[in-house]
């Protein structure tokens, strides 16, 4: 095929590019994150908690489990947030409580993996939800019907009861909390992915892939999945917020993460009995949970708003 073919249709483009496309792409992605003030604020708070969690791995003012102080003390210079009913330093416990949410997961005994329970739980529901949603949406036959009916049944089931069943069957521990988060999050992710898949599966590029004999897995994971990425990232960010609530709820019910690691939910639960003596012991972990969840929501909203605008332009 000669390039100097005789038709005078040389591409005239008014788009001049100086950056390499890859650099341009990163620049654009960063621009998406920082374009919205709301999103940037949310991101800052989330990063703050990540920092606190990382810091607590090596340094906290006191040992989080040490009980050698005055019980239910008011904030002072020695203990900026006060102490709890067993005389433990609340600041140290609050800092260490970030770890289970964002920083590390205790698989069993002393076997730790990076990434908090909330992150792994969300990762689990995303992975499972994407797999089921893509299959349901792309295949659209009895597989679709089957998957969606089961997931709908799961949604209809009361969440707390679901947690109790999972924990009663498998016992306490970080992996079980991850499983609980995964199971409750999967139906939502699957619904979202199925909807997006249905929308894009009739596009011409999917027809083109089918007509060159690509198999269903290639089409689902290589052709469709990258195009549902943007809404999935937003959804996943929101879900980290929900997962933190779930950990808090489980901790509050006393069926969450086993001692000795502190987590915010069980901190609220333990301090609840002394709420009239020492309301601050409830307030600090509650504030921590809500600030992290709200800022994740802000970040997700900012991301969504900006990605839709950037896609339009």
């Amino acid at each position, binding site marked *: *095929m000669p390039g100097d073919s*005789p*038709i005078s249709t040389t591409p005239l*483009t*008014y788009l001049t590019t100086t950056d390499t496309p890859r650099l341009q792409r990163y620049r654009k992605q960063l621009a998406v994150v920082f374009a919205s003030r709301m999103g940037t604020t949310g991101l800052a708070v989330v990063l703050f908690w990540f920092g606190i969690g990382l810091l607590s791995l090596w340094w906290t003012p006191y040992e989080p489990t040490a009980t050698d102080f005055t019980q239910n003390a008011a904030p002072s210079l020695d203990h900026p947030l006060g102490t709890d009913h067993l005389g433990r330093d609340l600041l140290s416990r609050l800092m260490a409580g970030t770890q289970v949410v964002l920083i590390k997961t205790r698989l069993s005994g002393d076997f730790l993996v990076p990434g908090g329970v909330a992150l792994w739980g969300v990762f689990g529901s995303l992975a499972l939800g994407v797999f089921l949603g893509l299959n349901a949406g792309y295949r659209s036959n009895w597989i679709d019907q089957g998957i969606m009916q089961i997931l709908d049944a799961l949604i209809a089931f009361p969440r707390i009861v679901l947690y109790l069943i999972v924990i009663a069957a498998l016992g306490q521990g970080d992996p079980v909390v991850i499983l609980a988060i995964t199971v409750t999050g999967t139906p939502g992710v699957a619904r979202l992915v199925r909807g997006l898949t249905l929308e894009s599966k009739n596009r*011409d590029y999917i027809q*083109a892939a089918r007509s060159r004999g690509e198999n269903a897995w290639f089409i689902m994971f290589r052709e469709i999945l990258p195009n549902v990425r943007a809404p999935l990232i937003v959804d996943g960010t929101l879900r980290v917020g929900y997962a933190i609530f779930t950990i808090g709820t489980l901790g509050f019910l006393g069926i969450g993460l086993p001692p000795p690691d502190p987590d915010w939910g069980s901190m609220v639960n333990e301090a609840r009995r002394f709420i009239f003596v020492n309301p601050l012991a409830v307030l600090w972990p509650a504030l921590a949970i809500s600030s992290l969840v709200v800022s994740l929501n802000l970040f997700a909203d900012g991301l969504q708003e900006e990605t839709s605008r950037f896609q339009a332009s």
Partner: protein
Amino acid sequence: MATSTPILEINQLAVAYKVRGGEVEAVCDLELTIGRGQSFGLVGESGCGKTTVAWAIVNFLGTNGYIKRGSIRFKGRELAGVSGPELNRLRGNQIAMVYQNPMQALNPSMCIADQLKETLIVHQQMAAAKAHSRCVEILDRVHMPDPSRVLQLYPHQLSGGQQQRVVIAMALLNEPALLIMDEPTTALDVTVEATVLDLIQELRRDLDTALLFISHNLGIVARVCDEVGVMYAGELVERAPVRTLFKTPRHPYTQGLLRCIPRLGDSKASRVLYPIPGQVPPPAQRPSGCHFSPRCDYATERCAAEHPTLDPLEKQWTRCHLAAEIDPAGWKAPAQTRPAGVAESPHEGTTLQVENLETHYEQRTGSLGELLGRRRKKYLRALDGVSFELPQGKTLGIVGESGCGKSTLVKTLIGLEPSAGGDAEFMGFDLTQDLKKRDTTLLRELQMVFQDPDSTLNPAYTVGYQIGRVLRRFGAVPAKQLRAATSELLNSVRLDQSYYERYPRQLSGGEKQRVGIARAFASPPELVLCDEPVSALDVSVQAAILNLLLDIQQQQGTTMVFIAHDLGVVRFFSDFVAVMYLGKIMEIGTAESIYAPPFPPYTEALLSAAPIPDPDAPQTQIRLQGNVPSALDPPAGCPFHTRCPRRHLLADGGALCASETPPWRPAANGHRIFCHLPLDTLARLEPVVASPQSPRA
């Protein structure tokens, strides 16, 4: 312009949109005048600011648009800058607008009666009962069959053509002095389009309404308008009475547009299309000097430096420094041009053989009876016994209204839809087998080019990756040469290396379509199915894409099936043409024989409806009544008998057509016609279009 005050007078109009980091002038220095009962056509490619003009007149520019300079006078009164109730009253009572998509103009949750009456009750404070009878009257006026029944219906119960009639009726309710129509027939089929255009003409004559008609289609403008303005990059570049414009276009852009479109009857052997190089610059990047100069064959230094004004020259106004000097007849084709006449391909012999092919879609009603298997399933017969043969290296064009099964045919051949019966054979492979069972060789030899440039490429991957994927899939080249082979393919569709790393969102519609073509020809295939590859493109881009396809086909000897709804384009591009109606082929033969008498009734109606970009071209008016019947329950006998205007030529009013399947009547050269009317009867009919065989210089 005999009347003292024109209905619409636009002077020095500039419209700007505020965008991030500044503003862009979408329209600048626009001037036009429309008198009572006159119709003014605005034509140009997309992105030239046609619709912005319409929006500026009704002050519907959105939150970021505003009239920057100039005046819009309606019956001598200034509209620019007027806001609030005064403008509302003017707009509702005196100016009406019809948009492109009737489904979007009608509220799906209100019945037609309520939507129509609202206009009367709000603007004329008419009593409800009186409003109702007025609505019946106006629907009758736009030739809507059974108006009182239609009033009770909801928009989705009407066909596209009927919906557009309702929208036009709504626009006419208050007897506006000015009617603005923005691409009113673009979403409609050619036969429906013809009836809507007739209606517009008739109403304009009877009601003396001034009409501003916006279209990208020169053929439609030629049919409807008295005066035409050609827009380019936000400006009027030429303004002239319609006959003058088509006879002696002065501006190089107008000349270029006319050289881009195949006229009805042109063939690839007799005519070369000359696309205008480059593309319309976006508003922020218009060149200084003449906006058209970078794409102009005549451009001089003066053109690049000095912005021309719209100056009168005899009967027309032209925005060109060289208007007086340019002689369209003296125009020479660019030196490197494909020689007219496509060489005969050396191979002969049938590659594609289709015999009685059928494709059915199951209609699910979702009822309990169906679920339990009690009720008979209903099938939509999208393809109902299609047979044809296609020799190697040749092109079969397929025309027909939407829903006739054109797309289903190519999708069935490529395996995207399962066939329900019949045979299809290609290079010894059976095409009725399931896509999953097909041999890799067969997959490689059969590729497709799609219609919608925005959906043909995966937005998540670069152009290079997507073309490369096809090469890898079929192992067309060793992995090391992948990049080089992809670049070569990009070259062959006239895209340079910078496109390799680009994402589809960074490309224009025409560029995306080129990549789609490169992808289809990558494997490399023996047979390429093109499903309306140029329908969504502007005319100059369309010409370039058609040339490109012809060129690649000639180099590779590819066989093609080519679908388009533009009869001129199909005639130009194809060696053989099949006319389809309701899942059946009504006529098939060489392209020349289809566009020459004898015409079977359906082809005759299609040709008579086709817009021709020449106001002087003779064309008989044959208009089809009613809509295409549902393929769920196709008419017995000849599928076309319910709308056929020639049925009465048969004995006892064509009772035969309603009961018996017509015979295939063989004419000369393998030309076959599916009709009860004998060939010599058809041949005696007066031809609808002038015989297109006239050779061109």
